[in-house]
């Protein structure tokens, strides 16, 4: 019984548990407040701050 490996493995599994529990994902997400209320009627009224110009493939 390797204690260090045991602790490492337990920690790794705890991390997997936490990831599942809070629904974590590696997707990069930016949070922005104050999205306009009329967005459903006018989607173009809202542009995310970086969503301008060329974005390649």
């Amino acid at each position, binding site marked *: *019984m*390797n204690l260090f*490996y*045991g602790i*490492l*493995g*337990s920690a*790794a*599994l705890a*991390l*997997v*548990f936490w*990831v*599942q529990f*809070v*629904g*974590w*994902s590696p*997707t*990069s*997400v*930016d*949070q*922005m*407040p*104050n*999205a*306009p*209320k009329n*967005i*459903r009627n006018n*989607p*173009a009224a*809202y*542009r*995310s701050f*970086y*969503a301008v110009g*060329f*974005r*390649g*493939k």
Partner: protein
Amino acid sequence: MLEIACPSCGDAVRFRSESSVYSTCASCQSLLVRHDVDIELLGKVADLQPDGTPIQIGTSGVFDGAAFEVLGRIQIHHPEGYWNEWFLQFQDGRHGWLGEAMGEYFVSSLVQTEPQSLPGFADLHVGKALRVGSRELVVTNLAQARVVSFQGELPFVMSTEYELPFADLRSAGRTGATLDYSEEEPLLFVGAFRDFDELQFRGLRDPEEEAERRSAADAKVLRCPNCGAPHELAGGPRTQTLVCTFCDAGIDLTDPNYGLLWKAQKARKEEPGIPLGTKGNLDGATWECLGFQRRFVRIEGVDYYWSEYVCYNRERGYRYLVESSGHWTWVAPMHKLPTASDGRPVHGWPPQDFLMLDGQKFKHFQSATGQVAYVVGEFPWRVKVEDSAGLHDYICPPQILSAEVTSDGMTWSLGRYLEPEEVWSAFGLSGNPPARSGVGANQPSPLAGMLRTAWMQYAVFFLVGFLMMIGFSILSAQAPVLTQDFVAVQGEEPSVVTRPFKLEGRTSNLVVRLQTTLDNRWAYFDMALINEETRQARIFSKSVSYYHGSSGGESWREGSKAEEVTVPSVPSGTYVLRLEPQTGTGNTPDNLSAKGSTAGQPVLKYGVRLTRDVPSWSYLWFVMVLLAIYPILVWIRYGSFEQKRWLESDHAPGDSSD
């Protein structure tokens, strides 16, 4: 019980068994034969030779739950030394024999056989398999023995000039048999080997009393006939050969005149690392080192040497302590035979790839011809320098299964690896044991336990992780939230917003699946998940591309028409998703807002499907891959240790003869 007066000396002679026809008078050693009530005096029997047996007439014991008493004894001499057949009377009236030689105990009884059903002595050879009843037995020893003397009551009597050709047979269990060719028809004795302790002997010979009697009887010191040096025999009467520790001459102790077997040895004198006469405690008994021999095998012109110590315990017999390149093995002779891959007791040669013993698999390690280079001390057999024997080793570390095969015998033994420190402490030796070099054939890998635990821990991690994910899979909602299709049209605003949807339950993820009709193009989706109450936006993106074609007659495809993106940790609430697609081919983005000739044409059809609270196994797989690194590293180190071990074997990696 019948008690009569000895016609020779007048002392009382008892016949305890109805079937005893013969008895010897304990006082005057007259041999008496009983005819109903008359007693006939047949003369005196030859003297019994001292053979160090712990058993005597009157000793009682238990065999498989049946109590017995020893009534009589036949002492037999064969090339390996003395052996006794003790005549037993069981409490239930049955009779049997207890064969006792060199600390091995074999209880047997005569089995009635059909005439001509047993092979002749000349038809036997060592390794021949014979079927006896339901069991398969293998001939392990063939020899000519000679009856030395009798004692006590016997159901029959033989003349002491009697030659006794016999064969010993052993099986994969503790069953054994002896074929006795002293009469016209061979006699078959079938029985079982037992350990000394199992027979629960009582009334054994008192070793102290016996030692006193012996020292009184032959007070003369054994002097080497070559150099005159005095010797005391620690192995007692069981010692057959004494190699003088001063001049290396070999003395035959079975010869009353102590004839010389040889005067000098070719090899130079070697000092045993463990001094002869040293006593040690192993397996719960005390063993005395009596003899030492240096042996070698010649493989491809190179001689490999090792040392063997003969260790003796009066009740348990002999063990061998083997030392090779600083690696020690404690070897005990075996009563039973290992089984070959066909499940039959091992018989015949060449050696097998592996053998089984007690459910353990022993892999073939090496076969070679062993020779004796140098001997010194006491031996329970007649030593011949330059004796050679076929040696076959099979390993299951820390155990080693060895066979020593000559034309008239095959001996199997089981050895156990001892750490050098264990040997030094068992024999109370001072200083340090010789340094080990290389890996011993049966040296247990220090990494074997580590490897086993590492994989076991890994298996536990996997199981826990797997059950955890099963739990999440069962308990998570995996709720379809929304499905909506859109069409991006040339010249019109590309951004769209979905219908509002409700996300329920605790904070968890949201999987966004984008399904497109892309064909050799790409699309980039800028997305914002907007909470209708808090106006908080979660901004993320995903690109989708699908290309296909053919080059050099091979068709290829790259990417996919559909992609998924998981938005992490979204609290419950009412949301909308805003999507703003951008399309393109190669490095050029399409100008979707241009109102050219294609205005009003659909550019991209796509659908979005949202699912709430989706468990993902990929994190577990990722963690399991990382956690596998440690056991794999241990496994690699274990492998290199094993490689060093097998380098010394017949199966060295890269050896073409394998």
